[in-house]
């Protein structure tokens, strides 16, 4: 089976993770720009971070046969540093139109402040003007109100709902998201947001249309194999193949290919791992296949 994990912060993951993801069938990922666990203090930190998303991280994933796309945006937490936020918002157009940037994201609300609303609105307007998709991060606290606010603002600005993906949904928010016409994404996170079992319940209840499963794996306790693991649970519980395909591959592809920044034909081809790059001495793979049951080979 092949999987599309449309929300994962690969920057924070090791090559072991990439290897395991590739082995489990993850063929494509989207890495949305987010915060790094602590606030940045200079705009230059954002320049380098965005550059790594469109450069090094894309290349790193490609060495494992994984197509790496990204979303560019100013996240909600750091939108609250208003001086810095203004500088970052000016930076967004320099990165958002790049090849393989499939959305503005992840943007939205954290504490639901005025500053967050300003940054969100500015970026949704940019997305609308450039015919782009928006990936929305919904808050951990006061989630339902945050999602409704995100939907309302996007509607006011005139972003087509088909270009809006609301992430981190729960049982309590999925109906609002789907009724609005947006895509409903779910983060399968160990212990907290949503487990595989609850996810399968939701898919049984709401059907597979516009439902997207992702891992949001990052620098915290999280699981980069959430998508294939949830697919496996779906199969075990007797969901049909089309449902599994839609929620773990096709819906994400359909939603984000609207950006025109996914070479779908190239993606559908078998992943080609270039051996000359794979064994390059000075890139991420150093000619070794790390295994714990064997000594370190040359």
């Amino acid at each position, binding site marked *: 089976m092949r999987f599309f994990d449309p929300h994962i912060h690969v920057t924070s993951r090791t090559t072991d993770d990439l290897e395991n993801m590739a082995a489990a069938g993850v063929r494509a990922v989207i890495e949305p720009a987010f915060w790094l666990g602590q606030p940045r203090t200079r705009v230059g930190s954002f320049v380098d971070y965005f550059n790594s998303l469109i*450069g090094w991280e894309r290349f790193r994933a490609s060495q494992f046969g994984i197509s790496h796309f990204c979303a560019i945006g100013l996240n909600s937490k750091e939108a609250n540093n208003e001086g810095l936020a203004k500088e970052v918002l000016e930076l967004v157009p320099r990165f958002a139109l*790049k090849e393989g940037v499939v959305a503005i994201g992840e943007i939205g609300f954290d504490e639901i402040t005025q500053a967050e609303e300003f940054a969100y609105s500015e970026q949704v307007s940019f997305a609308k003007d450039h015919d782009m998709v928006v990936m929305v991060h919904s808050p951990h606290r006061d989630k339902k109100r945050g999602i409704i606010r995100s939907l309302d603002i996007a509607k006011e600005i005139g972003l087509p709902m088909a270009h809006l993906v609301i992430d981190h949904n729960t049982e309590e928010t999925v109906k609002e998201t789907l009724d609005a016409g947006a895509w409903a994404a779910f983060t399968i996170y160990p212990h907290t947001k949503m487990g595989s079992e609850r996810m399968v319940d939701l898919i049984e209840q709401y059907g597979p249309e516009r439902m997207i499963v992702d891992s949001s794996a990052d620098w915290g306790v999280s699981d980069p194999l959430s998508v294939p693991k949830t697919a496996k649970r779906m199969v075990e519980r007797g969901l049909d193949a089309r449902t599994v395909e839609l929620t773990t591959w096709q819906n994400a592809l359909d939603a984000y290919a609207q950006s025109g920044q996914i070479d779908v034909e190239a993606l559908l081809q078998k992943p080609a791992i270039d051996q000359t790059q794979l064994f390059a001495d000075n890139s991420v793979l150093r000619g070794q296949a790390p295994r714990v049951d064997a000594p370190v080979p040359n």
Partner: protein
Amino acid sequence: MSAFLLLKRMLETRLPRPSVQWFRDACTEITDGVDDVRFAGLVAMASRHARDSTPLAPSADELKRANETLEGWNPERWGLLEALRAALVLTRSDLDDDRGVLAVESLFAFADEGEQRALYRVLPLVPSPERFAARAGEGCRTNIPPVFEAVVLDSPFAVRHFDDGAWNQAVIKAVFLGVPLWRLFGLDTRLGPELARMALDLVDERRSAHRDVQPELWLCLGEHGGARGTEALLKELDASNSNTMGRCAAAYALARAGEGERLVECMENEADSVVRAAMQEALDGNVASTVFRKLRPEEGA
């Protein structure tokens, strides 16, 4: 014919019609004058008109014209999108003054991997390319092999504009990364004792680690390896070495070092027909760096 005109012709016969129109409009806009953000936007959005996975695939005649335009410029392995972006850069009429340099540097500052490749490929084609020598040196520090290749391969930039330190580093790094050194234009014109010493140190390092020596590493010696070089080559060529491509490479390198007589001796007892053929070719004088293309499996070796 200028590089811009050649690229323009190649693009106009390959891009779909709406994209040709987009390209012409973009050229007009750039010629009329655009700010840096808009210019960068055009270069970025070229990806909506040509896919990175589509090769440019120049004809033999186009390749000949490219080399006539600038000796050593070989767009054989360019992508269509790279050509489109290169043409957009060359459209600027201010490339020979500071304004143009700033605009190109600003592109580099925000370039993704594909844009970096296109920008490094276009550097030898802009006026006074030496102004970008430091930028190209920065490109050589990349960890992304396709970007490194765009800086140093199929282009006369490195041989013309790198100082000795940068040149030697680029050559050895190419071997390290496993990128095809035979595609480094002008390699044979810029060999020397320092490069040979660096290469031989690398040979020792590989052998201590019980790893094969990369066949193209032997290209770095030329006639500057001295007794140490000859000894290392004879060891590589020895029948006990199971690395056939390495043995072939050593045969060529021995001839390149002017040790033809040694090679004749080795050939008398040679059982491996592949190695024998390489020895014969080497003795026939076919020893330019490009002969190492034959040692690359992906080139059909």
